């Protein structure tokens, strides 16, 4: 095995890839666009969306508006501590919501609503479209105002008979959040971290892998390379080296994009106030203070995933007869990695074990999620890294095997 031959092959592939300026620029720029877009843009968008909806004065239709007690009406219409909606008299609440005339509707019973507690309970129907996120905001506002009115009647009644408000709640439930700061930061959208890392590896490295294998085959230059005095092992290792270096470059760029985005997010999300910013980032996993060890662990896992996937990419690339065929074969690989990232986000019920962490792609995804949620230990990271390295040897062997098969190299 001649190292200078291996490097010669790898250097040619790298040079060729870097000179494909459009693809190269995209692989550098995309992480710096996608990462802040997901980690900052989403919280910003949702924050503005929900915040705006809460502030908005929605039009709410009311059947039998005249029967509504003034105190309840005041609670519903008041913007200061009330629901802050505009009430409009209508006759058919269900129809009005379905046709979109009003965003929500209330049906006040013909017999009216009590203005003191102690009688038979009376129901007020709230009509909204349950699947609409906007409608849920109105429903919550209306429900809250009606509950407050109901509570005020009860409190008044309790005061009249000389009882304190605590009479209603002799025992209170107090839920205490046991999450660490990192765990609460790695919220609903923490899956974006492993997903973007896989995306960076596959996005960047697959271009080199496909071009240097199926592309060379299609152009006819692979056959010419193989008739020169270079061993097939040296060709495979050279191509693997190029693909791996590019995949590593993808990991470095992606981790840098994470670091920049996670440092920028608190500044940008400040507009929601300290609490709002905290809630927002907790929900979306946007402000992740992973620190050096967190990012370093993520980088280690990323490197070994890159090594492992490079072998797969080269093996698939050389099996394909053309550039397009190779790209078709790679689509399921990308879909699998994205699905695993999303699936593992909701995988708290899965029993963690050494075997699970050692499983390709799944283990790495769990590991990155654990890092984000502050659960990862050095042992977990070590298991993932060692398993990935073992699989990397396996996938490199697979690539070499495909390179050694005449029916793979010369099939038409």
């Amino acid at each position, binding site marked *: 095995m001649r190292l*200078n031959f291996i490097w010669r092959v790898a250097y040619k592939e790298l040079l060729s890839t870097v000179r494909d300026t459009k693809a190269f620029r995209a692989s550098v720029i995309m992480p710096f666009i996608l990462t802040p877009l997901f980690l900052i843009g989403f919280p910003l968008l949702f924050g503005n969306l929900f915040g705006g909806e809460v502030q908005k004065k929605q039009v709410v239709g009311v059947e039998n508006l005249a029967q509504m007690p003034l105190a309840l009406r005041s609670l519903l219409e008041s913007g200061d501590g009330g629901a802050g909606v505009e009430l409009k008299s209508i006759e058919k609440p269900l129809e009005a919501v379905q046709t979109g005339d009003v965003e929500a509707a209330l049906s006040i019973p013909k017999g009216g609503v009590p203005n003191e507690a102690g009688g038979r309970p009376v129901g007020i129907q709230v009509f909204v479209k349950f699947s609409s996120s906007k409608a849920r905001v109105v429903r919550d506002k209306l429900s809250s105002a009606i509950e407050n009115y109901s509570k005020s009647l009860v409190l008044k009644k309790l005061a009249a008979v000389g009882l304190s408000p605590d009479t209603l709640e002799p025992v209170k439930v107090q839920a205490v959040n046991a999450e660490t700061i990192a765990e609460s930061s790695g919220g609903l959208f923490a899956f974006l971290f492993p997903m973007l890392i896989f995306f960076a590896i596959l996005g960047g490295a697959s271009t080199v892998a496909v071009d240097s294998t199926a592309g060379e085959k299609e152009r006819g230059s692979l*056959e010419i390379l193989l008739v*020169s005095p270079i061993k097939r092992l040296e060709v495979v290792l050279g191509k693997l080296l190029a693909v791996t270096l590019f995949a590593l470059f993808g990991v470095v760029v992606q981790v840098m994009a994470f670091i920049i985005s996670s440092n920028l997010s608190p500044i940008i999300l400040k507009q929601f106030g300290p609490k709002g910013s905290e809630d927002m980032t907790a929900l979306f996993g946007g402000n992740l203070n992973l620190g050096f060890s967190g990012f370093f662990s993520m980088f280690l896992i990323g490197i070994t995933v890159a090594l492992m996937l490079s072998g797969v990419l080269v093996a698939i690339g050389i099996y394909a007869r053309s550039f397009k065929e190779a790209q078709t074969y790679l689509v399921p690989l990308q879909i699998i990695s994205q699905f695993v990232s999303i699936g593992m986000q909701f995988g708290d019920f899965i029993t963690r074990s050494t075997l699970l962490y050692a499983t390709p792609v799944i283990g790495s995804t769990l590991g990155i999620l654990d890092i984000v949620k502050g659960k990862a230990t050095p042992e977990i990271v070590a298991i993932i890294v060692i398993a990935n390295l073992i699989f990397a040897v396996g996938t490199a062997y697979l690539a070499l095997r495909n390179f050694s098969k005449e029916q793979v190299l010369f099939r038409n």
Partner: protein
Amino acid sequence: MIEVQNLSKRYSPKVIAVDNLSFQAKAGEIYGLLGPNGAGKTTTLRMLATLLEPTGGSASVAGFDTKRQPEEVRRTIGVVNGGMGLYDRLTGQEILEYFAGFYNMGKSDTAKRIKELSDALEMNELLNRRAGEYSTGMKQKIVIARAVIHNPSVLILDEATNGLDVVARRAVLEFARNYKNSSRVVLYSTHIMAEAEELCERAAIIDHGKLIAEDSLANLKKRTNSTNLEEAFFRLTRGMA
């Protein structure tokens, strides 16, 4: 220089691409390997170039056995095929230097050889341009230069004029004619009889993987009472001679 003895390649029990093929090509000649499309020419050349392993028989190139000494064989051959595969984002100079490196040619030897080839093939203005910008004829020049960068004693041309215009085609034929000398052999594989008639002294005609005839072109025409090689080829492959 090239000795092929009962060479066979069986892809599956039903598919035999080359069946007991034998021929010899000597130094100082341009030897034709002729046959219709699908006759087994490319499979034969791939076995000679050590890309495919024969399932039977043997072959030696420049004294090296293709099975036992594949790397030595590859060191002595240069191959031009009809694919004209180049790396579009590399310049002609970079492509030639890339391949020269696999023959352990030093920097000065490489530069000297590139200069020689550049003069011979009139490709000086191509060397610093990327291959993606080349016309078909320009590409063919770099493809030929790449094949002979290490001055091989055996040059194999496989349907090398495919897709070329008349000027580029003529350049390839001229190059092949000029390349042979007392210590070199050119193996010219084609289905275009006019090219073979112009270049080759002797030829093997194969069809369905089998050797139909092997002789000098004059004798092949004489045996079949033909006025030209194409007629002789037709008669031989149709069993009319």
